[in-house]
């Protein structure tokens, strides 16, 4: 008796649930298919929009695989980047002249501008340009050669860099606020904190020709640069004592 009642109640509930589903109009199989297709298209477009974007990178060429249409770069953050090239990729030298893929060689510094895929983390290059990236370093002046117009700068990793100041170099000073003031080579002092932006000297590979030099006049001393500012040697001015007297010629 009890079992019969239980079965009856179960069937009653089941029929109620079935009725509730039946109340909603169900789409036909064709409509379902169309809805799914539309959903997929929208999802695909949204994914595409989010997945790729324009990007530009700068790096040094590590490898050029012409057969694979691929260039491998080491970017400025030290990360390996894979660049895909195709028939419409344009190549330029540092002066804007036209190049082609075979002109790309290892250790060249280049910029790549193209379409970056966030998923594959590869960039499809539209423009590859050879770059002359300026050398930048920061440190303290440890010696000044007023004859040859050069200074030696010690960086915070204890490297000594020789910097030539020529007529094209711009020397400025900073002493506060938001302005840089015109400065001169003759005003540079030992121990001054400087920022140098320049290019390697083609005649002397150990030297950098300064394009710009900023002298931070009131900057505190960098604790990572161990350089003792030499005290100036005071030499006694020569006196006339003991020297032969010069008498004017009549």
């Amino acid at each position: 008796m009890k079992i019969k009642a239980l079965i009856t109640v179960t069937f009653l509930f089941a029929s109620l649930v079935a009725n509730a589903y039946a109340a909603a109009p169900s789409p036909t199989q064709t409509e379902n298919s169309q809805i799914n297709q539309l959903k997929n298209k929208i999802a695909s477009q949204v994914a595409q929009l989010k997945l790729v974007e324009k990007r530009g990178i700068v790096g040094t060429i590590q490898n050029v695989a012409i057969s694979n249409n691929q260039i491998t770069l080491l970017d400025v953050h030290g990360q390996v980047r894979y660049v895909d090239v195709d028939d419409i990729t344009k190549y330029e030298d540092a002066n804007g002249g036209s190049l082609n893929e075979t002109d790309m060689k290892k250790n060249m510094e280049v910029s790549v501008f193209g379409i970056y895929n966030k998923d594959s983390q590869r960039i499809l290059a539209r423009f590859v340009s050879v770059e002359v990236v300026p050398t930048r370093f920061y440190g303290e002046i440890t010696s000044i050669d007023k004859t040859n117009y050069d200074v030696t700068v010690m960086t915070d990793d204890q490297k000594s860099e020789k910097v030539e100041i020529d007529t094209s170099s711009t020397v400025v000073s900073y002493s506060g606020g938001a302005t840089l003031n015109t400065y001169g080579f003759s005003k540079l002092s030992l121990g001054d904190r400087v920022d140098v932006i320049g290019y390697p000297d083609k005649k002397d590979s150990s030297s950098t020709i300064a394009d710009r030099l900023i002298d931070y006049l009131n900057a505190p001393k960098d604790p990572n640069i161990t350089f003792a500012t030499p005290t100036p040697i005071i030499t006694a001015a020569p006196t006339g004592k003991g020297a032969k007297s010069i008498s004017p010629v009549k």
Partner: protein
Amino acid sequence: MKAEKVILSFVAVFVGLVAAGIAFYFYQSTKVIPTDQTKPSATQVAMQPTKAPNNSDVFTIDSPGDEQVYSQKSITIKGTAVKGATITVSTDDEDQVVQPADNGDFTLTQTIPNGTSLIEFTTIFPDGTVKKIDRTVTFSTENF
């Protein structure tokens, strides 16, 4: 009869618990505890005090993002540094210097060169140390 069954059930459960307890005791006694305590346990690691953040070398660039592409030459640079720091912004052909406000924020406008180039941000902290951040930016109006 029913009371007997109930009592027997309780006795059986009690006996079972005692047997399980004895088995568990023997199982635990067979475990070997390593004498080398040099490696910190998870509990010890969790109890180590966390270092207080060092705010003396705060230097971040919020804008521009790295490898960002602009269709206008003039861009806004925004960032944060410790008060009293000196920030130098260097592109391929010009430099600007800025000092952060009391809350550490700084903003300036910078003209970027054509194509892809680097912007270097150098800050001199009040204690004399230096920190650098590089950003690659591109000015282009190309459509592809």
